[in-house]
């Protein structure tokens, strides 16, 4: 559990910087319209309840991590096309995705080892490949806003 906790702390420690880096890299109107464009309104985002049992929290955390992992993969893919020069953002997105992957591994092991949960149903975010540029940027910003919010809650919960 300490590793999960540390991972959540690590993610939480870098979430805000990632969010800022993201909307800064998108340029206007994002930095000045965060409330409208980057509000953490992500449909189908898995819920996380900090006051649940450890098992429930782990299951929900797994779903959140799985959702975020794939969604961040999409964002990373989009940003490499939309902002190829934003290498720092790319690096941070990759690093976050790696950490989420490690978190998934740890959570799964914990669920499997302690609660004998070998499989968790997960949901994934919408595919952004068909969206226009602005929508891609907006969805990415909303996702990172949501990520920052949920990781903060999860870090507190564990």
């Amino acid at each position, binding site marked *: 559990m300490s590793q999960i906790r540390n991972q959540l702390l*690590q993610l939480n*420690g870098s979430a805000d910087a990632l969010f800022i880096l993201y909307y800064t890299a998108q340029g206007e109107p994002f930095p000045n319209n965060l409330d409208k464009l980057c509000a953490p309104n992500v449909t189908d985002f898995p819920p996380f309840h900090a006051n649940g049992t450890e098992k429930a929290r782990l299951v929900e955390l797994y779903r959140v991590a799985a959702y975020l992992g794939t969604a961040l993969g999409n964002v990373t893919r989009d940003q490499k096309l939309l902002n190829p020069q934003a290498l720092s953002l790319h690096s941070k997105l990759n690093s976050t995705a790696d*950490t989420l992957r490690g978190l*998934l*591994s740890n959570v799964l*092991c914990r669920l499997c080892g302690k609660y004998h949960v070998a499989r968790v149903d997960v949901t994934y975010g919408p595919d952004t490949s068909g969206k226009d540029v602005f929508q891609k940027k907006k969805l990415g910003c909303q996702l990172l806003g949501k990520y920052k919010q949920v990781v903060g809650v999860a870090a507190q919960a564990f």
Partner: protein
Amino acid sequence: MSTLQIWVAQALVIFLTTESVGELLDPCGYINPESPVIERGSNFTAVCVLKEKCVDYYHANASYIVWKTNHLNVPKEQYTTINRTASSVTLTNVASLSIQLTCNIFAYGQIEQNVYGITVLSGFPPEKPKNLNCIVNEGKRMMCQWDPGRETYLETNFTLKSEWATEKFEDCKAKPDTPNSCLVSYAPVYFVNIEVWVEVENALGTATSDHLNFDPVEKVKPNPPHNLSVSNSEELSSILKLTWINPNIKTIMTLKYNIEYRTKDASTWSQIPPEDIASTRFSFTVQDLKPFTEYVFRIRCMRSNGKGFWSDWSEEASGITYEDRPSKAPSFWYKINPSHTHGYRTVQLIWKTLLPFEANGKILDYEVTLTRWKSHLQNYTTNDTKLTVNLTDDRYIATLTARNLVGKSDASALTIPACDFQATHPVMDLKAFPKDNMLWVEWTAPSKSVKKYILEWCVLSDSSPCIPDWQQEDGTVHRTYLRAPSKGPIVRTKKVGKNEAVLEWDQLPVDAQNGFIRNYTIFYRTVIGNETAVNVDSSHTEYTLSSLTSDTLYMVRMTAYTDEGGKDGPEFTFTTPKFAQGEIEAIVVPVCLAFLLTTLLGVLFCFNKRDLIKKHIWPNVPDPSKSHIAQWSPHTPPRHNFNSKDQMYSDGNFTDVSVVEIEANDKKPFPEDLKSLDLFKKEKISTEGHSSGIGGSSCMSSSRPSISSSDDNESTQNTSSTVQYSTVVHSGYRHQVPSVQVFSRSESTQPLLDSEERPEDLQLVDNVDNNDEILPRQQYFKQNCSQPETSPDISHFERSKQVSSSNEEDFVRLKQQQISDLISQSCGSGQIKMFQEVSTADAFAPGTEGQVERFEAVGMEAATDEGMPKSYLPQTVRQGGYVPQ
């Protein structure tokens, strides 16, 4: 299309070649195993199997097989004939890394023939890799290292495998040159256990290391803290505050630190207690430092729980503690001038500067206070270490304090006794003796308590006066030594030249001198050379080392000597430059200027002598062998009469006779011109040897160029600078024998055909270029004729083009032949006159016909008046005696 054809052809060739080689290389048998790899030291058995067709063809069987290793026969005892076609050999205790094993057969029982060969490799199976460990350099990928075990002598692959509990990572294959480490391709993920192990395999087996399971965060080697800075505090002279920026890894782990420091001149480091810096921080205040002392710091960090690796040391940073008041009173003494006048005496108060660790800062000045009994204080402030005052005979008390930026030292008190004071408790049994290369002084303390002792001494020398030195000792000691300098002078270079170096140094501080500096000795040497010592007077602060070698590294140190000994200063190195200052410029600039000047002169010379150069390099010299006297004739028969090829020249736009004209300087010929003339003369002379003889250039003489020169004829020197060519026709046109031998000359002095000898035989032929509009101004052709009344005929030779065409040659020869008949009749010996400003432009104009019945000294009109082309005949031609056809 062509590419396709080439491709098909190549493919066909390759196919056919492969087929044929396959046939050609079809062996008579084979060895099994084909490519064996065996463990070193083991036995190895191979079997050679012959093919039936070879057995039959060579009338041989397996008993005819001979085994060889590396071209040496294997003892028969190691063979075994298995059956009619198979033979085996066993190699025992194979130690060689590589063995060439061949199976050979005696064909027809006699001829040894190779059947097959294999290479046997030997080595060792891989050992289990040991000591597997990994490190994650912050910001980089994970690298694992292991002990690969003994050398296998075979191609051995090491693969680092890694996986999480839920997924595997890409294998990391070690490079052949670094089989003991591998850098994984993925970024490390912290707080997830990863399992790594090494698998190794070669042809003799595989091995696997122990699995290592760890969290990468426990293998982190952080980046060192950076931007380390040091600041002091005015409030506390014993502290320095360090600040730094932690590496980014601090966001996921707590750090602990090592901080080390030393004084600037020290070589060993002191360490801050680790427990004081066992958690993440970005500053630390170091205490208990000496005032006004420069300290150097460095810092490193690692994960606070000790799992992981220390970072590298940071960049060093230094700082100076703030000043503190001097910690000690200066040593204080006095000297009284023995002269005593009017109730006053001159007293010199002297003191020694404080050592740095006593001064605790920069001493700004000294304050001296003199107090006489029941009198006012007398205060003096000075920067010097001595003070001379006039005192009365009374007793005085002097105090001395040293002051720096922060405060004053304690006062040194000194009683200057009254004039009539008699010491009642003198020091007894004063002895001095050498010991351990030092001069020791020992005395018996008086019975009363003593505040301090002052030792005075001087060197007893016949050559130098006694210059007293002194030192102060506590009242508790009764033995001390006279101190040599405590440190040597620090030498440095003031100026370094190619062969000399000016050294300079500062005078040693008084308190480091420990006496009087008698002299300095400079030791210098090269890396490989012997050390040279130079003694320098103590009053100097610089010295010039001379006779140094350029581009050489020198090491120099200095020793300061007092009477008690010497002390080396630190060694200093310098390198003499390869070139002295300005030497390169001194070489390059003159060379460049000289080159420039030479080039300029060369260009000017070439420009001035362009004609001469042109003459030497590409002179317009016609081939004399292709020249004919007829070409000079002003009266040339129509060419079309002779050769149909001449038709092409019917317009007269060609030159029949080539003439080279050299316009010499009228005033004075250039030496080069003369030289060239000489050359021509030599040529002439040599040609004469081949001619038919002097005194009459025979018709067999070859054509020669003629050059007017002063050597040939003084008369022509002033008038002519034109070189003309004449031709002696020595054969008829097209194998026709001329009826009369014709000689031609250009001038009596010309080296032309030795014409001086028989000028009467000369005939003149003009060279005419019909279209040549540029006529020479001074062209002439004089010929001596027997009849003085005969007007000179002008033979004006214009510089013309070479006539190389055979048609033209034919034409010219014809003209020459025709003209020669006339000349032979009319021209005798006589004077050649010069004609100026004449033109022969039309001399050979097509359709020129008629006869010239009269030749006079006329110009252009002479010819044109007669309806003839402009041509000029030699003077020697009689009227009507020279009639061109």
